[in-house]
């Protein structure tokens, strides 16, 4: 597909010379760099609760953001109106960050390289509503059918179709069509009049609706949510204090996202505010650990053909055999640090300035048999599933909450334990990794990452991993 056939050219009649004119206006006060980000976003959400499809919403937002960079300064303005006058006005507002005569007269734009990591023919957002409503109805029935102790089920289906167009004063012109769909199920279970226990599950990606019919069905997610809720019914108090912790494969990779991922975002390191600042080449994890951020995995929730600054995403090695190798860059940080962009410049919407962000972050598989890892622990905690996490990138302290975990006693999983927060320190925690399993798994596609008020979809993954020391926030 060429630019003239792209969404914004075809639907809104935007031409190359219009983009060049807007960029010139943005640079009229002497900025060093400018870019335009056009976004059209159509979304749909359907929710079932108590067996009733209570909510169904759809809508559209459209706008353009204009950014000007002058040295370390950024000016930004946006418009939800694509008329030339409004875009030029936004360009003039963003331009005010710079002071001086225009340095760049005109920018010839060249089509960037193209590929398609998510070859979805019919986006979920373009399918019949009845088919999408059916997914939540099926999920709700399956969760209730799983166990008669399940008394409350809520399921939601959400999809979006985003069209973006990026043009930069470096001459980059790129566009992308980004489909996304996700199904979530929450189940509540109770026995003998006790407290309700909750289980969550969900997944999706940059996929078509067939994914939910053939690969991961509503029943799959529903049974998983119900199973987790039921497991919790017999949970005992979690231990308090330091413990050996074994992470199960998949979603527990959120540990990497919090412990190292955020701390390696280039903006914090450029400013010297990350606990990982200045540590490239140093040992920050056990030699068993290799951690990558890869935005190029087909159909994944965290993947992108191009990032929100028009750069192709790539596979970036963050930690190689325990040694810190690199940071995640956006255009601003890579300009100022003299590094190549890594395809990690992302933003929530046209109303937001791009920042270095993760895509799909995971640890490569090791050699240990997962069973053997559990067998090696005389006393400890096995975490099969996590809720969310959070990190203070300056001190490096991070937490995440274990939503399904079990005591390990004499090398065997015994009783389930209540939800507990685990806490550690980023540059230290992974030094205690003593075994890495051969069972790398990526999560099923529900991750949302928040940074400075901007939420974006991401993926995580990890094989089974033994960590010899971590602090567990239980009461026992």
């Amino acid at each position: 597909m060429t630019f003239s056939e792209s969404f914004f050219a075809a639907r809104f009649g935007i031409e190359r010379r219009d983009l060049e004119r807007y960029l010139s206006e943005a640079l009229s006060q002497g900025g060093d760099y400018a870019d335009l980000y056009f976004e059209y976003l159509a979304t749909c959400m359907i929710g079932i609760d108590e067996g009733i499809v209570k909510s169904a919403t759809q809508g559209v937002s459209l706008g353009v953001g204009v950014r000007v960079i002058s040295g370390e300064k950024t000016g930004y303005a946006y418009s939800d109106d694509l008329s030339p006058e409004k875009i030029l006005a936004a360009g003039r507002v963003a331009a005010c960050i710079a002071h001086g005569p225009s340095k760049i007269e005109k920018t010839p734009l060249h089509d960037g390289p193209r590929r398609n990591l998510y070859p979805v023919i019919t986006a979920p957002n373009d399918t019949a509503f009845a088919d999408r409503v059916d997914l939540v109805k099926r999920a709700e029935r399956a969760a209730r059918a799983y166990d008669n102790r399940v008394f409350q089920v809520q399921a939601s289906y959400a999809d979006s179709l985003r069209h973006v167009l990026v043009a930069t004063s470096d001459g980059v012109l790129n566009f992308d069509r980004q489909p996304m769909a996700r199904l979530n199920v929450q189940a509540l279970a109770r026995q003998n009049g006790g407290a309700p226990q909750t289980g969550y599950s969900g997944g999706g990606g940059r996929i078509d609706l067939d994914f939910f019919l053939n690969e991961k069905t509503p029943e799959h997610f529903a049974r998983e949510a119900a199973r987790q809720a039921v497991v919790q019914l017999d949970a005992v108090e979690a231990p308090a204090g330091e413990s050996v912790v074994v992470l199960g494969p998949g979603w527990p990779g959120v540990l990497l996202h919090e412990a190292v991922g955020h701390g390696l975002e280039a903006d914090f390191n450029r400013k010297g505010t990350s606990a990982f600042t200045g540590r490239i080449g140093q040992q920050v994890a056990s030699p068993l650990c290799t951690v990558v951020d890869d935005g190029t995995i087909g159909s994944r929730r965290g993947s992108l053909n191009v990032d929100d600054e028009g750069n192709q995403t790539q596979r970036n090695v963050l930690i190689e055999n325990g040694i810190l190798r690199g940071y995640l860059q956006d255009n601003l940080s890579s300009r100022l640090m003299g590094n190549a962009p890594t395809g990690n410049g992302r933003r929530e919407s046209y109303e937001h300035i791009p920042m270095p962000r993760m895509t799909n972050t995971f640890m490569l598989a090791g050699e240990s048999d997962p069973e053997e890892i559990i067998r090696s622990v005389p006393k400890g905690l096995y975490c099969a599933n996590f809720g969310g996490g959070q990190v203070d990138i300056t001190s490096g302290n991070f937490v995440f909450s274990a939503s399904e975990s079990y005591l390990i006693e004499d090398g065997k999983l015994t009783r389930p334990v209540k939800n507990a927060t685990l806490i550690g320190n980023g540059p230290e925690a992974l030094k205690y990794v003593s075994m890495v399993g051969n069972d790398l798994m990526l999560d099923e596609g529900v991750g949302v990452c928040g940074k400075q008020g901007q939420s974006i979809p991401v993926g995580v993954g990890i094989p089974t991993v033994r960590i010899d020391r971590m602090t567990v926030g239980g009461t026992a």
Partner: protein
Amino acid sequence: MSELLDIACQVVELARKAGATGAECTCSEGENFSVDIRLNEVETLTQSASRATGLRVMVGQFTGSSYTSDLTRDGLAKLVASAMELAAVTTEDPLAGLPDPQDLGSFQGDLDLFSDDIERLAPQERIEMALRAERTALEFDARITNSDGAGFSSFRGVHAFANSLQFAGEYRSSYCSISCVPVAKQGEKMERDYWSSSARGVAQLESPEQVGRIAAERTVRRLGAVKATTQKAPVIFEPRVARSFAGGLFDAIEGRAIYRDSSFLNGKLGQKIASSRTTLIDDGTMPRLFGSQPFDDEGVATRRTVVIRNGVLETYLLNTYAARKLGMRTTGNASRGITGNAGVGHGNFYLEPGERSPEDLIRSVANGFYVTELIGSGVNISTGDYSRGATGLWIENGKLTYPVSEVTIAGTLQEMLANLEPANDLEFRSSFAAPTLFVGEMTIGGK
């Protein structure tokens, strides 16, 4: 009537013509300004305006909703068609619908939500305020070696709402804020903390110097933090942390958690669930505060509601739907953004102050933990289980001593409520508010 309210009324009329038996439309527009500075230089400056509208339609007992940022004639026609299309695929719900007509209304009185002094402040003066905050922080202590920046942001906007029961209302609001995030270093270890001040107008803001100084004090006192040993000990929350505790209680008393039977407080109306010193209020009618608005997002007048009085749970907070589910009456707590159906929200949701000063509360603790920051999301409102990451200062013999970090605190909301003692230092800095709180003994997870 403003143009925005006119649009809301037009949308409701278009929906009725399209066959909706009930409709409600929310419209918002606003202008944002924000400047972030770092190390004495402007880092980012953002300035923009936007508008959007959301619609909910009822066709009999079927609901559909839609939103758009396109407020042209064509855009509004599509908005209505989209919502009507979805009403055809949802399930009939006998309790869904607009509020009872007698509940509609607006708080009478000036809530003073808009101040025009922000727009009189030139961009250069706004930048200067952020610079002053950071400068104060950087000069406060030699160990403050870096900065994650300081900022000034502001907003002014209009919110309009109309429904097919003839309710039409609108209000203006404004907001401004100064914030500062210093970074301190001691040996190889860095720490950061922050402080911010927000208000409806510039005149009510704390001075940039005060924001910078408090941010710096908070950052420096974290240096040299150690990990406490694992133990049970009494815990005190400083006000910023106590606010988030109040926020956790909101999740447990909002109507949806009650009718879904997912809150540990379900079925506890009229029962003593907290210490007698505990009184919890929701008040959407307090002038200038961030939780105030004249009507909720279904067009019901906001009000003051006592949720817990002297430890006894008196009511839940409800929107129309939750009230119908529970056989109660709405408390004017419907809340929605532009998209979707109304959920339950809060006004100014706060714990009333007690008698003793924070110093007195601390003095009464021989060995305990004064918590200044919590991270993570470990509050389970179904079971009351509580487990979060914590940072703070250790209390020895009634005095704050050395800093502690990388530990967890765990217990249950039930026990924390039973032991609650609020101090007398209540301040309203956001729509959740609480004074310093003694929460009783908890398990501290450390080394």
